[in-house]
């Protein structure tokens, strides 16, 4: 048990990775065996992630060195820098790990019946497990090149999953656009890693952060990293690939691909707060992030109002909610150099952004799954052709209402709690930010009212008389996310104190992040 606790970070990455390649072999024994295997592996990963969270909350930052017992050991002994790949799990990594594991589990359970009848399901579950492994890899790693490798794995498996139903032309197109944009972004990330290695001869994030001098080359690397990682997370003005990729993604993979975009946002946070921190010009970068957030919020929701494809509408809301998160993080970043402002509202802003990340993974994932449930039951994604499904698909309707209230920020839902934190703190930096955020919230409610009216209310249409409600495993998949949403709604302070504030403090405490590897070794 002790060994499991010490090795939990690497097991959380290695187990789904190994299981991904074992899935085709297990699939030879039959579909049911493979399904049980996949769900069992994801439950084990969930258990490992919670072990890691408990360790981080009680014992501080967890450092796991691959190939040695301590971070300072190296071969040959003349080297004194950390040369090994080191996993460094702090509050942020633990926090994002919960999101990755839970969303992957509920998505896989949902896919058990949603993918029934599709061919090549072995490969589907392989890709799903690979995506989970890559998300946990990015969240737990403390090494830049390791981050790049897992980023590429995330892109490849995400694109292959998006394009999985190759009989639909928009699926193949979405996968192609995703892989092109992701590969170019990852190449820009690799270029900046090369810049860091060329200057400092180091790849470990804490070590580079310690040695960082913020030269001209470091500024270029920062610009490349911000541009590439904000594109990967889907911020405007580089959001174009998001609707094309998320809309045709099959079954339960839409929330998982969304969690992978949130992971890329987490990687951007790691770069900006832990790698650069106060050494860069925080107000410039902070305002850059704030402007990206405002544009994402507004353009995301105004485009969403126009859509008639249900999943495309929800995907524009993905972009819009990412805007809220970027606003929160940008406000916290812009005042990073001023300790008074950080204590007054900076820390709250970052906590609000992180809480919104957690809430979004749950309620936005739930909404994407309800969209897919409607597609599964009716065979169409076009809102113009739907109507009156509230009577037949009762559970889907209930989950949709929970998700729609949460995303619009209606009290007492969790969306309201995190949005309130973002409104309060961004108001103190500049009142216009909060006003734009409020207007966007109203328009979000408007667009979900539109979906509710078009799909669930209204008279029962004759062409949908024989539609049956969705199968049980889909309800369970949606139910897990809905239960999470309701839990966070009822106990926001508990969630904030337990996982969100430690993650915030981990981001703000760059000295401890460096000191655990450089000082103690």
């Amino acid at each position, binding site marked *: 048990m002790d060994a499991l606790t010490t090795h939990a970070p690497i097991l959380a990455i290695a187990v789904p990775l190994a299981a991904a390649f074992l899935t085709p072999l297990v699939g030879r024994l039959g579909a049911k065996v493979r399904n049980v295997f996949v769900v069992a592996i994801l439950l084990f990963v969930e258990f490992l992630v919670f072990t890691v969270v408990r360790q981080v909350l009680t014992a501080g930052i967890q450092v796991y060195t691959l190939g040695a017992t301590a971070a300072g050991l190296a071969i040959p002994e003349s080297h004194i820098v950390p040369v090994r790949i080191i996993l460094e799990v702090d509050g942020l990594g633990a926090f994002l790990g919960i999101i990755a594991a839970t969303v992957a589990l509920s998505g896989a359970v949902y896919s058990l019946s949603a993918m029934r009848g599709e061919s090549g399901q072995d490969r589907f579950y392989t890709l799903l497990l690979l995506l989970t492994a890559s998300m946990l890899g990015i969240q737990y790693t403390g090494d830049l090149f390791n981050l790049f490798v897992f980023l*590429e794995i995330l*892109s490849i498996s995400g694109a292959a999953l998006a*394009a999985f139903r190759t009989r639909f*032309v928009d699926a193949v197109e979405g996968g192609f656009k995703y892989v*092109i944009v992701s590969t170019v972004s990852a190449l820009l990330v690799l270029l900046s890693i*090369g810049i860091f290695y060329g200057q400092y001869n180091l*790849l470990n994030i804490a070590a580079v952060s310690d040695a960082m001098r913020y030269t001209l080359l470091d500024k270029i690397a920062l610009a490349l990293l911000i541009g590439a990682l904000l594109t990967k997370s889907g911020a405007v003005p580089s959001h174009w690939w998001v609707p094309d990729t998320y809309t045709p993604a099959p079954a339960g993979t839409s929330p998982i691909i969304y969690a992978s975009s949130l992971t890329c946002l987490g990687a951007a946070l790691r770069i900006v707060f832990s790698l650069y921190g106060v050494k860069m010009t925080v107000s410039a970068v902070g305002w850059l992030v704030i402007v990206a957030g405002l544009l994402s919020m507004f353009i995301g929701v105004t485009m969403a109002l126009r859509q008639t494809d249900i999943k495309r509408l929800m995907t524009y809301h993905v972009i819009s909610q990412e805007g809220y998160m970027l606003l929160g993080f940008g406000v916290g970043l812009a005042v990073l150099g001023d300790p008074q402002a950080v204590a007054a509202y900076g820390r709250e802003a970052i906590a609000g952004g992180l809480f919104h990340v957690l809430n979004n993974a749950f309620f936005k994932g739930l909404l994407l799954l309800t969209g897919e449930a409607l597609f599964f039951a009716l065979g169409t994604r076009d809102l113009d052709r739907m109507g009156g499904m509230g009577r037949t698909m009762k559970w889907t309707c209930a989950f949709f209402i929970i998700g729609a209230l949460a995303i619009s920020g209606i009290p007492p839902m969790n969306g309201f709690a995190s949005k309130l934190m973002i409104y309060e703190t961004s108001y103190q930096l500049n009142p216009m930010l909060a006003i734009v955020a409020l207007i966007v919230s109203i328009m979000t409610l408007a667009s979900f009212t539109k979906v509710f009216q078009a799909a669930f209310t209204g008279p029962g249409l004759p062409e949908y008389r024989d539609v049956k409600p969705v199968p049980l495993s889909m309800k369970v998949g949606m139910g897990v996310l809905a239960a999470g949403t309701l839990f966070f709604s009822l106990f926001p302070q508990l969630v904030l104190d337990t996982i969100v504030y430690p993650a915030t403090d981990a981001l703000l405490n760059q000295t401890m992040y460096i000191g655990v590897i450089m000082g103690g070794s």
Partner: protein
Amino acid sequence: MTSLVVNAPFVAVAALACVGLYIMVTQRDLIKIVMGVTILESAVNLFLVSLGYRNEGAAPGFTHASGTHMVLPVPQALTLTSIVIGVATTALMLTLVILIYRHTGETDAEKSRRVKG
């Protein structure tokens, strides 16, 4: 003059990257876009290898060598990883291009798109 010779690989990196980016942004044929991505990949790989070079260095094939000045081995490892990842992504990109061609009969980015807005 020596500074130009020393910096020649980095000038080549910049030139390759510009060529790759130009192709990706202006050429409409899907396979040409994939070629542009591959050229950008080569540029980044060349950058990684050239930043490891040390003047009069030997190949990094020794352990515990004394008195032998070697080029940096780590960027070479990074480049190998990057080349392998590049192979995987290029294979995926070309597969998707073929699937788009089978569906739409076009390899033009503008004519083969079915989704917009």
